[in-house]
């Protein structure tokens, strides 16, 4: 998978990595059991501190998104969150609040906002469906 770091995003770099792995997992770019890039090659490629990547992977592990197999690296876990429903709702609420605040700044009304949310949900479902299909059909290399 490919990562994109934006130093102007106002979000700590390790959290950007966390978000992108979670996004990749949600959209099927990264499937359960697939490996994440190694810390050193990723650090060299993105030219960021290896501590930053280690911190991101530790965070993903504590969130139950990935698991570390000693000597083998980090792998995406099957999708089962270790958090209780209440905690999950709370976590999601925080993210939604950010989007609500953003929508307010951009003067996007309630209906348009809900419409966008639905559109994005559809988008991810489509991605995941496509991905499942393409994984069933054998891949051709040219």
């Amino acid at each position: 998978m490919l990562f994109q770091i934006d130093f102007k995003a106002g979000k700590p770099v390790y959290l950007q990595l966390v978000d992108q792995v979670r996004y990749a997992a949600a959209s099927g770019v990264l499937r359960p059991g697939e490996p994440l890039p190694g810390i050193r090659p990723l650090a060299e490629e993105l030219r960021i501190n290896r501590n930053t990547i280690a911190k991101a992977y530790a965070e993903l592990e504590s969130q139950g998104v990935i698991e570390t197999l000693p000597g083998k690296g980090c792998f995406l876990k099957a999708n089962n969150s270790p958090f209780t429903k209440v905690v999950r709702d709370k976590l999601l609420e925080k993210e939604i609040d950010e989007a609500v605040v953003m929508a307010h700044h951009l003067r996007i009304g309630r209906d348009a906002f809900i419409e966008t949310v639905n559109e994005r949900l559809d988008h991810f479902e489509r991605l995941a469906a496509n991905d499942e299909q393409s994984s069933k059909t054998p891949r051709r290399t040219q």
Partner: protein
Amino acid sequence: MKESQSAIEIRELTRRYGKLEAVHGLSLTVRAGCCYGFFGRNGAGKTTTIKCLLNLLRPQSGTVRVLGLDPQREEVAVKSRIAYVPDAVAFYPWMTVRDTLEYFASFRAHWNRDIENDLLKRFGLNPNQKAASMSKGQKTQLALITAVCPEPELLVLDEPTSGLDPIVRREFIETVIGAYQSSDPENRTVFVSTHLISEFEGLIDEFTVIEQGRNLLTMNADDARSRFKKISVRFATAPVNLAPVGALQVKQNGRSAEILANGNSERIITELKLQNPEDLRCESLSLEEIFVASKALTKSA
């Protein structure tokens, strides 16, 4: 334990050249295992500070500790555990790349041949080439190999990439991240002085901006990026006297304006919104922009 010990500890360092005060009461602490940026304009006192770390200059007042040791009293102990790449590297012109590496290795208790071979290959250096015929970029690459192979606990880089082409610069940084920090990262500290800040942006955990020999700003890089923000705003009609309370800097151009915030972006945004802007965006400053903006910080302080 080593974790708790700082790699570099500078307290109230002062160094004058005649009447000129190059460094004035500078204090900073570099944690072991971190990558520390030392930013400043030409003549800000960066190299003078670094020379005091290496005992190439003596402090006139204040104290300097490197890996817990006094570089003046325990020069050999300090130098055997650190490596230094200056901005202008020089080698004996009659020595080949191979000779130079052997020469440097002879001063070191430990020398990692695998890293040496890897980097020679990676940089495409010919072991039989004489230093006299090497380009500036190749000499810097050779200097980097001599600095990384002993696997020192502290790597001091003084303007390492200035004057190099973009490919050499990129390889340089990748080498510091990859080869240098590949094993035992908790005991691999980087102290890099530079004004090419954007290249090192992702590497820097913490930084100090030095200006006229004084510590202007010391911050964690992520904290700095979340504290310093640029708010771009556009109104339907050009506002008169746009001056949000607490703004670090306001640049207005007709209906549009750019406002720098220092930790109070929320308040400034709330204030701006009272004037019903057509458009309002907020983004973090990069470390380079923070460095440039830090001048305004002294004026506002």
